[in-house]
């Protein structure tokens, strides 16, 4: 769940629990990563608990990155995260692309 400088790209792997119980920690992690990295890749493969707060945080991250001209790439959405996105109405690829333009290996 920490930044890994050994990887070719700076990446932040989200923890398994991104639900409201742990969202503040995830939020702090992302903010910290924002402050330290020029280019940020967020690996969502380990997320197995997600809810509205997880989606909002990812949306805000994407929005902030875009506004600051600093690309935030979201990669490897886990099945749990995908299900949560769908339950929240992000049911189409087009809709997800619209909100997460920097997504890779998406849904």
């Amino acid at each position, binding site marked *: 769940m920490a930044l890994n400088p050994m990887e070719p790209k700076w990446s932040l792997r989200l923890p398994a629990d991104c639900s409201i119980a742990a969202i503040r920690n995830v939020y702090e992690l992302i903010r910290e990563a924002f402050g330290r990295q020029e280019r940020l890749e967020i690996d969502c493969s380990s997320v197995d608990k997600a809810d509205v707060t997880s989606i909002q945080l990812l949306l805000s991250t994407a929005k902030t990155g875009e506004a600051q001209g600093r690309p935030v790439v979201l990669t490897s959405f886990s099945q749990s995260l995908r299900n949560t996105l769908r*339950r*929240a109405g992000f*049911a*189409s690829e*087009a*809709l997800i692309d619209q909100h997460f333009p920097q997504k890779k290996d998406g849904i």
Partner: protein
Amino acid sequence: MSAMDPTEVFRQEASELFEVLEGALLDLGQRPDDRELVDSAFRALHTIKGSGAMFGFDKVASFTHEFETAFDRVRKGEIKPTQELISVALAAKDYIRALIEDPQSTDDIIGEAILDDLRRFVSADQPAAPVAAIAEAPPLSPAESKQAGWHLYLEFESHILRNGSNPLDLLEDLCKLGPCFVVPITDGIPFLDEMEPEDCYLKWDVKLHAACDKDAIDDVFMFVQDEMKLTLSPLEQVEAPAPAPLFQLLDEEPVAAVEMAAPAIEAVAAPAAEQPAAKAEPKPEARPEPRAEAKREERGIATVRVQAERLDELMDRVGELVIAQARLTQLAASGSDLSIKMIAEEIERLASSLRDTTMGARMVPIGSLFGRFRRLVHDLSRDLSKPVEFVTSGEDTELDKTMIECLADPLVHLIRNAIDHGIEDTATRAANGKTEQGRIELAAVHSGAQVLVTVKDNGGGLNTARIRAKAEEQGLIAPGAVLSDHEIHQFLFHPGFSTAQTISALSGRGVGMDVVKRTIENMRGSIDLSTRSGQGTTVTLRLPLTLAIIEGLLIRVGEGRYIIPLSAVEECVELTAEDERSRGRNFLNVRGNLVPFLRLRELMAASGVPDRHQKTIIISTGETRVGLVADQIIGNHQTVIKSLSKLHSDVTIFSGATILGDGTAALILDVAQLVSLAQSKVEKQHINEAA
């Protein structure tokens, strides 16, 4: 001051919700058609589920979810809550409580068995498929018949997620009503720096393609209706076929979902993102009511959750202030400075008002305690096969929170006794011309500075002859001694005394009533019994309003000063020469009634010459009156109660101590013990006279 552990907050909240849930389930057994009770039970379940998930109690959340699902048919009015179903639901509630309070003691197998029972009961009368249910719905009006569904706009209050509510669950429930298209509105999502990660920013625009009525939609949001904006407008019939439902697609291949859902979403998303159509023209009934908003605001500031320890701490501080104020008053009185006297009076007034306010903050309605006995009665009534109606009154009567906590166990004993021994079995009741259903009344009422709590049953009443025989058998009274019924009944409070012929799991071991009496007396209260053969028994508990600061009567005996709780004082009279001459018999004649008295000088082994005009303070517990003879009555005194040290724990006639204005200590007399002492002296006298 440390912040409270969030899981502890959850535990406390859950504990309150369990009481609500239990109360609603028990009431439902009596009033199965009361929709408000079903809703109340569901609201409690829903909050437990949501909060449980939020605080990491995943097992609680998943079990409660299953419970909710199984019970859903009751909510929909498809089945009636039978007594059996209520019993299983109560067991499910107990299991959830155990999952929260002591997860180690729980077993998944038990949980699964409870859920199986619940499912079995609710599916015993399985109705036709939901389609048939819709077919049974009243025909649509001409205006409605063109309606193809509903257009909804959902906006939740920012704190909704913190409360444990999950909008995604609500959306899922909504989609169960029919094909549903959900479009998230993300324009409220802030930048990272401005974000509160636990707040809710997403909004939704939903098209529901189902000809359901508005109530069905309201049902989905019933738990959060005060915390959201919901605008509803009918969808006009469209020629295009209704698109495939979103949630049917969830388990299918993602590609299929995209292909089928995308066009519809594109079509709806554009206007919805800018301004929801429904919001532009909200239906009058869908507009959030100003009254509801005002109610929300009121609720927001109406209560503050405070740790009980902090209230205790505050009370201690107020106690210290009252003592310091007494010292100041005494100092001011001994001097001649008028301005100091005025300040002392002002501080006395403020301290008194602060004391009342603080004591008020510690007051809790006794109803919070009564609620838990309903379950007790329900379970005992079932186990003993004695149908019992449980009636409570005076739930709003307030008592110090410490008293409420101490009162729980004695009341459990009294109610158990009333059902086990008091209420007769149905055959006996029928033979005696009584209704088959027994009745237990639990009531609380204010009476001066006391609260009276009564437990009344309409059973057979106490068997005075059997109590007397048992007392004689145990050597507590001499055979043939002359005792009133009231005096005989007091043996029930004797340790180890039981008239039960068999020992059951509930009672019969003679342990209980003496503990009840001791507990009540430790609270500076008293217990009284009254009974009528064939008609029932009433047990009355008299309790002071608080345990922290009381109004006391300060007296002097020899050189020592003592406090008598003012609530126990009936009157003060002078010991006449005639009474003095009755030395050895120790009875006063108070307006024609003989009242036994105790000479406190003898009791306290006071030295020095007694005052010439001795005063007698008549005190009472329940219906028993006793006189206490003292040298001087000094006056009333705000008494801050301090516990006695362990060294004095065996001195039974004192219940505590207090600090007087001059810094010296005064002991507080234990009224119940003194009355009991006087009674035993009277009894001894009776026995001696009989001998």
